[in-house]
């Protein structure tokens, strides 16, 4: 139903321990943010793409579809860096709102931001594309989050698909009755969809209460989480990649 989520369950890396993937992609994310943007971001981005389309087996089209919306935000946001407002020379005089002018350093700054953010985005997407939340969420207690919160997050994760499915069905039904044919109808349709969803959500919660009580529910949603083997070698290998990226970046800085 959600493309990234569906892809994560089909990922060849699905059975890799989330901690290993967290180390690899978290490390690369740090590289993207902390290393000098050139060539750090470029090396990180290339590494992430090689991992994604190589061993992690991410489907390129799905990856591209997921990436374009945040990329659009990154590009729009960095446009503002290309120009500055306020007449030159007025800078010291404070925030006077003068005419708009090209910023001579703007292009370099924008390129740096775009590079960094793109590399970081790729790392985040890679993690999402290879790590199913059903495997990740129950393990969040290990990093110290309260069990009650983790239980709530896991419950919301399950229920959001039920709600999403309801929303899609109602939306399709409304469209069939021309509910999205005009802007006015559209607003009316979204409003009534939202209200219907709220009522259904409340109803669903009550029905689930009954349904789970029959299974012995008394307030705790305890489940058995099977242990995934966490091999130290895998963790080391995962950590090695960002370290190599960092070394390559710093090394190239020395040589350049």
């Amino acid at each position: 139903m959600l493309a990234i989520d569906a892809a994560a369950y089909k990922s060849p890396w699905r059975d890799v321990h989330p901690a290993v993937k967290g180390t690899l992609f978290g490390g690369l994310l740090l590289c993207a943010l902390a290393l000098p943007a050139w060539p750090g971001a470029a090396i990180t981005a290339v590494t992430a793409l090689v991992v994604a389309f190589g061993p992690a087996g991410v489907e390129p089209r799905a990856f591209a579809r997921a990436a374009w919306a945040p990329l659009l935000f990154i590009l729009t946001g960095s446009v503002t860096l290309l120009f500055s407002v306020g007449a030159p020379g007025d800078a010291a005089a404070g925030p006077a709102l003068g005419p708009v002018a090209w910023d001579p350093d703007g292009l370099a700054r924008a390129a740096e931001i775009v590079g960094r953010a793109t590399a970081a985005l790729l790392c985040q997407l890679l993690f999402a594309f290879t790590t199913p939340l059903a495997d990740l969420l129950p393990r969040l207690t290990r990093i110290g989050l309260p069990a009650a919160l983790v239980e709530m997050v896991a419950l919301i994760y399950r229920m959001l698909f039920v709600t999403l499915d309801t929303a899609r069905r109602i939306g399709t039904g409304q469209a069939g009755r021309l509910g999205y044919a005009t802007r006015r109808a559209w607003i009316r349709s979204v409003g009534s969809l939202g209200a219907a969803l709220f009522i259904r959500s409340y109803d669903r919660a009550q029905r689930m209460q009954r349904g789970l009580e029959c299974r012995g529910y008394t307030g705790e949603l305890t489940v058995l989480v099977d242990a995934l083997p966490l091999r130290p070698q895998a963790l080391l290998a995962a950590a090695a990649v960002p370290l190599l990226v960092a070394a390559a970046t710093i090394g190239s800085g020395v040589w350049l």
Partner: protein
Amino acid sequence: MSPGGAPATAPAVLAGRDLAFAYDDADPVFTGLNVAVAAGEVLAVLGPNGGGKTTLLRLLAGSLRPRSGEILLDGAGVPQSRRGIGGLRRRVQLVFQDPDDQLFSASVRQDVSFGPLNQGLDTDTVRERVDWALDALDITGLAGQPTHLLSYGQRKRVVLAGALAMRPSVLILDEPTAGLDPAGVESLLATLEGLRASGTTLVVSTHEVDLAYRWADRALVIDHGVLGVGPVRQVLGDTALLSAARLRPAWGPAVGRALRTSGLLPDDAPDPRTPEEVAALLDSDR
């Protein structure tokens, strides 16, 4: 029976030509599917879950876009533009299996008025349409009720009224009898019989071979493509075809054959459609 959908004798009011569809990156549900719905007929669509029944109905109603092929309304291709789809939806209404998918307003009356209002009709006409549709489904008494307090069967009727209030030429029903008890099924069938009599073309999907047998003019059996199409007696009497579509055989043809063999039924008599007809046969004999 040749796949490809034999053209109906009456002119097709709604048709699909060479339709192909796939959900996202999954395997295609079907490719090169042809179907034609004749004006005024009742067409039953049968097949296993996941075989493409609902997909086909949604394509015909403009609720999904075909990957290739086209939908024809009165013989003319429907363009896959916003305007084209809008025009299709004005003529063809699809009623989903689960009534909760189509009920979202606070009151029954408000819900039924949703479609006519979106058609841009003036309030007097909308009111007229709503009254007429509520009356046609025998639920005028429910008009002021909040939708979430209705029983399942009542909700099914309200959704049907909401589609009917748009005065469609073709009404498409996805599993309309699912979840209804036998009394509810009988009452729905009576309502649909009335619609058919008033000239509405009906396309109905169902699992229940006995029901389709009893009630449709033609049957279309699909499972990732057309397995068979034709008059119900011919298609649903074909045990091999039904078994290929993972459907249970109908009682009617099996019993008809047995009764003809035993001489209880003349050789040229049609098969019984209900257990009552079998009982009546015996009683008339005495």
